């Protein structure tokens, strides 16, 4: 199973993105997207922002669960209090695990935000952040 994660800023700009695979069922953590799909992932995730925009006002929870379905891929979304969107493209439905992943990711993001050298909507280029997200992925997905 493969995943594509995107963190979207307040101006709907991509702040961070990552492709990764599962460590379950003997996976090695590498994404196994086809060449077409690899190219398509950002498009699908980006177009699901249309739906996030509609849905975010209908609920008061941060985890919006699965919001879109595209070519048999599901997209889960999480809205932070600061209007940052986490979007995860995945293949099977696992709301609870993804919620835990998002909550921990939020924790990571907030820590990044507290850095005096980082401002909102700026792309996250920190290698440490990258490493930690991968560890989270390994832990949950």
């Amino acid at each position, binding site marked *: 199973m493969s995943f594509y994660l995107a963190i979207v800023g307040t101006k709907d700009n991509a702040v961070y993105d990552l492709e990764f695979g599962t460590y379950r069922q003997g996976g090695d953590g590498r994404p196994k997207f086809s060449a077409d799909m690899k190219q398509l992932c950002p498009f699908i995730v980006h177009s699901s922002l249309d739906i996030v925009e509609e849905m975010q006002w209908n609920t008061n929870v941060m985890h919006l669960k699965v919001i879109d379905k595209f*070519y048999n891929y599901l997209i889960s979304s999480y809205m932070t209090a600061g209007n940052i969107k986490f979007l995860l493209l995945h293949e099977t439905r696992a709301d609870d695990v993804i919620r835990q992943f998002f909550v921990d990711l939020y924790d990571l993001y907030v820590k990044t935000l507290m850095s005096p050298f980082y401002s909102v909507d700026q792309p996250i280029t920190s290698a440490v952040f990258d490493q930690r997200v991968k560890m989270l992925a390994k832990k949950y997905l």
Partner: protein
Amino acid sequence: MEVYPPEYLCHNLPLMLVRGLTTNSSKTSQSTLNTSSPDSPLGSPLIDTSFPDGTELFKAFTEGGEGGIWEGSAVKADRKAHAPVFRVLAVGKDYQLPAKKASPLSPVSVSSFSSSGPKSPSSHSPLSPFSPESPLFPDGIISQFWLRKYRNSLPAVFVSFHEIFTESEGTQSKSSHDNDLIKELNDLKRQFSERNVKFVAVVVSRRSILQSIDLNERISYLRKNTGLDAKSGLFSLPPCSPLEIQTFAKELKQALYPIALDFYSTLLKHARRKRARNGGSQYPPVSSGHQLSAAGWNIRYEFKQAVFAEFRQEIDVAIKLYGIAYESLLEYFDSISIDSPRWNEARMILDTMAFKILKCNLYQCQPVMAQKVFNVHIESVTALVEKKFSTKDTYSYFAWKAQQYWLLAQLLDVVPEDISPRSVPFTGVNTTVVGPDFPSANVLHHSGFQYLGAAGLTIERARRAKNSVPEPLDLYLVPPPEQEQYFDHSGLVLSLLETAYARFNKGDGSQTRMQAYIAHEIAQMRFKEGNYEDALKYFHLSETEYRREKWYTILGSMISEAIIAARKCGNKFELVKLQIESLSKEFAPWNSGVANISNFLDGSEDASEMPVYVVDSDSIVSFVEAHFAFMATEAHLATSVVGQLTLRSQHTPAVGAVRMSSVQLNFTGGLKPILIKHDDTLSGSRAQKLELSDIAGEYSDAKGYLVFQPGEVRTFEISQPIKTLGTLTASSLIVTFEESSFTAKLAVNLATVPFDDALSKWWTEDGGKLYSQRLTSSLPRSITVIPKQPHVDVISGLKGPAYIGEKLTIPLTITSREDEDIRLSVKIKAQNVEGQFNVPTTWIGSDESSDAIELGTVPAFSSVQCQFSLSIPSDACDLIVDVAATYILLSEPDISIVKSHAIDLPVIFPFHVSYDLTPRIYPRRWPSPFFIYDLQSHSPPITKRWCLSAVIDAVDLQHLEIHDYEFDVSNVVSVHCNLLEDRPKEFQRDTSSSDAYQHNFMIDVTNNDPAEKRIATADAKLTLSWRRTNMDSGSEDNSFTLPTLKLTFPLLEPRVLMDVESTSSEHVHLVYFIENATSHLLTFSVTLDLNNDMSLSYPIRHQMRQQSYSKDFDEQDHASRQEKVPLQHANFAYEGAKQVGVRVLPYTARRLDYELLPLAVTSGWQRVPALRVYDTHFKKSLSVFPASEKFRVDFKTGAVHVNISSTP
């Protein structure tokens, strides 16, 4: 959609056939079932084209229903509010009813029905599976021909138009024509009644009832002989207006609608009966041995029932019946062989029924149910296909699925938006219907999503078409594998995607990301098929969205594809633009083969042309970042402003250094563009101070080093004198790259450049390194240019306020503190504070009427004077006079400096006047009542004297001088007024109040009215001529008219006047006059009271303090007088009657004398004893009025005082 016969998809409406109207419409019935039609002479003339109302009539009939895929108005539950909707078709002479039975085999014409032989009990409909000529023979369920029969040829209502003969007046010919018509109508009626079709005749006449009197009679005759009643059988239509025709058509439809519904309910009952008899079990087996099973017959009748319910517009019944038929058919598939041609037929019926159920749910405004039906249909058929063919991974399955999405999409295109709203793509997590794997699985999305789904499935189909084909293969709706190879899949996908894009792109700014995604899909497909023009167009549509949201991940790969497309189609502008964009370091990870600017066009350009490509940096992700800041936020005119341009090139390191040929900086607000040209020799400094040359030309030229390493910052400082007032803003920047074969220009709008914290600084260089410091201004690229500080003073010579109606002259002194000569002009403007009106001003000593005056050259440190006059308005208000002294220094003639000075000018009344009207003793005797003066009058002319004393005060009295006055009494009623002319020419200052003027006006009032009037009235008007005494240049004479004073004189009232004849320290001689101006004899009791109580005192009320201009002022006046009267208790002995009865004859005055002897004091103001005069008849005390200035009255107590020492 084209694969489905329209009969299966369109909505079924009650059919009305109209015969006898020749129309130019294409809406005519195609009764294809019976092709051979022997032309039957119908006897009566049909309405030909010359009949004027033919087309109009037909239009009126066909209004409403088309029988299309969506008929929202037809299914409205409330029939009364909505006009009934028929499917109306026109038929010609050759119309034939569809054959009822297959035998006799020859088709039956309308006219020849009468000759049809006896019916065979074993005969079946030509469409029945029993009839060998039927396409369903022997085991088909139902075909579209059956539906076509009820949609096109077998009507519920047949309306036949006939013309009644009115051309000739001959009774004979009329009756012959009428009889022919009766024969024909009877014939038609009989034929239609055999098929249970309602026959309606409309008899049209060319003449109205007025022109053809026997028309009514003839119509009744027709009705009587045909048995067609007036309500729903035979209608007559005289010539009428289009509106009347419409009403006629509407009413006709309303009358026939229930009959039409009955027609279909009869058919429905018939089908139900047949279904109940369990289908074909009763029929004999056909020779082939292969026949439709009982279950098949059941489905046939269930389907028929559902269709008839739909004809009846009973949507809920139709949903139920279609549902039953759908489920039966699904089970029936078990008994159909997949090789049989019946397989495809049954699949089509299944799709049709699912579509009908879905559509009926939409008619009932239940989109969630509709989506559920769609999902169930997809799932059921998928299960069926998997069961029958053991795999669904074939191109035919995906073709069928795509077809379902496409069908739904096209339906949603015509469904009104309130049923299938487009604005909300998903209803969100709170939807009550939660699907198995996806919360909004049962939410009906708008058609854009359906088209997109169809496109995706077609792509899947194309992929499967290349694979090897499993056996057996489902060939429903698809060509066989060898033809499928040549099917244009990509063309279909593209058309679906383009339709989807159009549906998403409704221009309301929503779902823009889906649009971008679809545009990208289309672009890529176009790109792959080599249509680079279109690919570029869609790349462009898609890029905009990703650029706006800065999704460089996506944009990077798109740009590299778009560059290829632009190169392939030779669009050089796009090629340059996209390659400039691709230089940005944002795209470095996705853009490996970035070209340097010089290689943008591969050198294929003709060098002699040198085309120029101008790219707007707002439309791309620009690698050039620019910022401009002024050092200060404000600058004085004619000083130099210092600004700094900061440039940073964020290009990808792959191309090395970037060399700009020139940079042009544009300003708004009075500074010429600055053109910085590249100069290799200036490479030393990164913070460069520009030396501007060519000040007189179009640009200010400068040289700078414009080669940038990746991420390098360079700054350019300018210093320019500014000569225009207002705001100066750095507006834009044009960066030019001149290459050997072309020129590229990048236009940067500084207003839209986003704020960059790292760049928006003031940069300084120290030791080869750049240091930055923060800017204080929020808008550093703008500077406000303010005028130079003036060094002159303006002083006004006016003291005090302005008075209303005054012509005021104000002197101005303007002193220059400049250390050189100036040229000065002064401009004034006077208006009220609210700015509602202007006051005209004139310069004194200038002939010009303008509001400005040129004062010429003023030497350094000296003064100049001028004066202007203005006419003060005659209302109290606050004026403000703006004085603007504008000057130029002789050394700087271009720059004018302004000194403003405002003079506040309150406008007030110059004088306040209070009046006092007191009686005086008329010195002469009154005329005798026994002498007749005037025959009209009953009474002698009695004269009474009054004194009107005016006290005039002012706020600034010492600077005002009254030098003349006018006093006049006008509007005198009932009396004659005589002003005593013993006045001084100048006003006297009041003796008691040195500040105020005082004057007494004596008025003799003589009664001259024949009728006895109690009071007389008059208006007193006082006009003062005055001038200011405090103006150095003298003042003009002004006049001020006080408001008119209303005087009231009592005429008849008896009164007691008191005067003093002489006073000294020893005695005071008081005289009392009791006046009787009436014609009655009056008796008074007179008592002199020496007590000091206040029982009788001076009657304040009767003192005629008639007018005071200002109340406050009046009260002040009282107060000042009280203080000046030393109140002492009187202590007199006296000589005279202490108590006496006095009779006063009519028109006479009686005099009483008293000699008072002061006992204790011998000087000062002494209180006079009060005289009580009591009218014994009227039981009333009379007031005693002091009639001389020798008395003083204490207004508080009413006590009268006399000065006993001042009188000699």
